[in-house]
């Protein structure tokens, strides 16, 4: 299963490192990353592969949200299909 991780919040040192470390510890493979900063606001979208993930989806979702909270970032993970179906015919 592929999913999209989005990180939104104020720019700070080590955001990508923190998210990637967490994902790597859960054996989640990062396939693609894109990030932009608009007026100090950091937004990152990552395409990840959960095929070999060590934890269930719901757990990973909570862990990411929790990791975001400590840095005042909004981190979420959603299955890729939802974006595909809404934006591609």
């Amino acid at each position: 299963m592929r999913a999209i991780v989005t990180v939104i919040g104020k720019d700070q040192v080590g955001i990508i490192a923190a998210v990637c470390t967490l994902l790597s510890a859960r054996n989640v493979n990062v396939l693609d990353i894109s990030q932009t900063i608009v007026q100090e606001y950091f937004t990152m979208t990552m395409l990840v592969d959960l095929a070999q993930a060590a934890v269930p989806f719901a757990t990973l979702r909570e862990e990411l949200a929790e990791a975001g909270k400590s840095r005042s970032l909004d981190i979420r993970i959603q299955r890729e299909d939802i974006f595909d179906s809404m934006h591609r015919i």
Partner: protein
Amino acid sequence: MLNSKDILSTIRMIDQQHLDVRTITMGISLLDCCDPDPAAACRKIYDKIATSAQHLVRTGQDIETEFGIPIVNKRISVTPMALVAGASRTNDYLPFAQAMDRAAKAVGVNFIGGFSALVQKGMTEGDRKLIAAIPEALAATDVVCASVNVGSTKAGINMDAVRLMGGVIKDTAQRTADRGGFGCAKLVVFCNAVEDNPFMAGAFHGVGEAERVINVGVSGPGVVHHALQAVKGQSFDVLAETIKKTAFQVTRMGQLVAQEASARLGVPFGIVDLSLAPTPAVGDSVARILEEMGLEVCGTHGTTAALALLNDAVKKGGVMASSSVGGLSGAFIPVSEDEGMIAAAQSGSLTLDKLEAMTCVCSVGLDMIAVPGDTSAATISAILADEAAIGMVNTKTTAVRIIPAPGKQVGDTVEFGGLLGSAPVMPCHTGSAEDFVARGGRIPAPMHSLKN
């Protein structure tokens, strides 16, 4: 990879514009639960619902987690109960409603629809008993919804049933007077009722349907409103295109959720209902969409035209996004459930007469409208007849969900809470329709040539 702009636009729709799946509704046939012994029939009804829908709520929650899209309601619709209960040797249909109530609570859904009778042409003994049981059933149960289809384009309007329903609505309001007549919020009177509607209170599982089916109702007034803010002042062509594109995206999301729920539950996918269903939350209103089109307040001149455009564009956008569209599909205009409608009704701009005109061009009808508690049963029957006539002549579904709020006068507000919101009590005409309603019989079906 997906464009991050697209990803963020979806996230904004969910976070800021109230995009959600309004309901996953499992339709369950109860035709095999008929039994001459009413207690045995009730047991079968309970067992079939509780078994069929045991994973429904959990599955909805799982999909919610994985896709990150809120699924507000999980619900059940069943075969019109008059058809099932009609086989039992009893005059008391309350236990059937109670069996539905218990089963719905056991599986954790928040509403179950189908305490219903289809009497557009005539009433069976079962239909009569069910209609008589509606007030008590709605007062004695918590999550059961009732509906009665009193007319159709092919059969005409059963005015005997219309007369009965005026009294049933009054009685239901009285029996739930301590909650503002809340029972009436769970009762819909239809013309041309559809068999696959996932929305409450009018959902039932039609006899032409499969054993079990998954129907999904999407929503998204907030998303449409937001999209229209970007095309201020532009022509109606641009307006219609913008609504279509937005409806397409919203429906694609609903289709995905419907397919996923259907696969996980092992229940065939039925339809996606394209309705724009508002909630009392600010930013989730159909009235505000109409105002965004350039009307100072919903209900003023131009409202009907604006709603016609909205309703049509929503359908056009949604149809291509789903493999199977059905239900009511259009814009809902429930007064108490729409922050903008409430404001317009309170200001006096939105009247019952204007709402009636609006129902000619949008889905459903006079929905969640509170009228003074002393409104007579005959007046309510006459309102039902007017609305049924609009549905019958225009070959569309119309419905009435009206609350004669006990002890309330024009200017008062009835609070229902939650998604049902609060209803400002609206004035009715005071001229009597007593003699008209007392006639009984049937208004013949309209002819379909010489259209003018």
